[in-house]
């Protein structure tokens, strides 16, 4: 049975007199432990889908089924409790945290809110989470703006896995990172997936990265699905016009490299 099933999801925005269909009748599903990539040019609706799936915004139409339940039917405390299973990592890790927060507080929040660990036990749990994402416990007291971008994204991942989710939505989570740091974060994500069977919705416009880490890919254009299928099959031989354009536009080293 699939972990997340999205059917006929639709969301439009009014922009002056015009209505923009940001997401237009989109359906897809994800199995446990699987990585599904959402790729497409800017404005194709990738982030809107992420926000819909996380119930940060409400759809105009469509269904979202998560872990066998109607996710759109939840509200209030029931929704907040279910959120432990469904987490998100944002593109800009600096914007994704309260500017006044410290690393410890950022990781303390989910543990406290969901009663995952008693107060006395939390510092130990925080240290363990930091270690899990390849950081040491001594970054805990530091302010969020006092650590590097790569470290920050690790903290964001630590926060996302604190509640033991079955699905994490990563919206351009590695796009703002340096190439070398990006590789390490991708390795970390794969490692977590292997050990805890976490599924990912991996949003990116970089097809090279998508091809390297996703099982399946959904290519979007103008809020609609242009093409979907096995990541390597789709990217190696795209059928849709947008797929071909995206592949053609990707910078390549092998054109120069012998």
């Amino acid at each position, binding site marked *: 049975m699939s972990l997340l099933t999205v059917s006929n999801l639709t969301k439009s925005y009014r922009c002056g007199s015009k209505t923009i269909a940001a997401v237009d009748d989109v359906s897809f599903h994800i199995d446990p432990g699987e990585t599904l990539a959402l790729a497409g040019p800017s404005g194709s609706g990738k982030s809107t889908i992420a926000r819909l799936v996380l119930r940060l915004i409400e759809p105009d139409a469509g269904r979202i089924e998560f872990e066998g339940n109607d996710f759109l039917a939840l509200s209030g405390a029931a929704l907040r409790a279910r959120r432990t299973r469904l987490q998100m990592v944002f593109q800009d890790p600096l914007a994704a945290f309260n500017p006044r927060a410290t690393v410890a507080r950022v990781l303390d929040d989910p543990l406290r809110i969901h009663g995952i660990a008693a107060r006395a036990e939390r510092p130990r749990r925080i240290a363990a989470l930091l270690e899990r994402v390849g950081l040491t416990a001594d970054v805990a007291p530091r302010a969020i703006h006092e650590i590097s971008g790569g470290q920050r994204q690790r903290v964001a991942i630590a926060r996302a896995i604190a509640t033991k989710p079955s699905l994490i939505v990563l919206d351009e989570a590695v796009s703002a990172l340096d190439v070398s740091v990006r590789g390490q974060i*991708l390795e970390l994500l794969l490692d977590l997936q292997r050990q805890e069977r976490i599924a990912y919705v991996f949003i990116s416009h970089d097809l090279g990265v998508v091809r390297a880490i996703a099982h399946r890919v959904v290519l979007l254009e103008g809020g609609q699905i242009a093409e979907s299928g096995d990541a390597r099959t789709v990217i190696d031989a795209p059928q849709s016009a947008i797929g071909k354009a995206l592949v053609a536009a990707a910078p390549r080293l092998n054109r120069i490299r012998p």
Partner: protein
Amino acid sequence: MTALASIRDLTVTYRRDGNEVAALKTINLDIVAGERLAIIGESGSGKSTLALAIAGLMPRSSRIEGRVDWLLPSSPSSGAKAPLGGRDIGFVFQDPSASLDPVMTVGKQIAEVAYTHLGLTWPQAYAKAKSLLERVRLPDPDSALQAFPHQLSGGQKQRIAIAAAIAAGPKLLIADEATSALDTILQAEIVALIRRLVAEDGMTLLFISHDIALAAELAERIAVFRHGELLELGMTAQIVGAPTQAYTRTLLDAHIGLDAAPLLNRAGLDA
């Protein structure tokens, strides 16, 4: 091969909260007239600092040692005449909305550069602005002249910023992460546009990026920076094909292209 600018022992230190940060350490580099030179390196390696120092735009809180000598063909004395930002050097930044004035029409912003540096009258400057918008292949240049920046998409804004940067016919165009905020399709379009404009006008290009593949597609020479030092400088084919520095090799290996070995296999998840 004539140098447009020659950088000798350039050292830049920033003062911040009482301590000094060395952003560039004794850099020696010649920028050849008419070449496309890429500067690559990780975040904080000093790429932007180099661009600002070349353009003479360093903030006051910084200390600069060493020399940047210019051999501008336009200057009669052909000596060390300082170039003029806007006229001799065009700048394109990563975030186009930050370099465009939100309350001025796009046409006026471009025309202003032509008016100030080329001594044109306003009507001539506007005509020049329109022809520039055509050159950067903006659809419907007439209505774009009247548009405000917020009415344009990211890619369109970046074209406007490029049009403004080349309005005065600079000798050197500096693009600092000019395509990093765009998606790959727009990025490829902007890179093609820069390449065409540089070729048509015989401009020299300094292209700053942390994406080695992108830099390799555009540049003839690549300079690799790390921790404020110039690690390696060479022709693109040599840097990409036979780098002498281990760090350059790490950068190349970190690139995940469409032909990269999937990370997924190593994770063994496919079953």
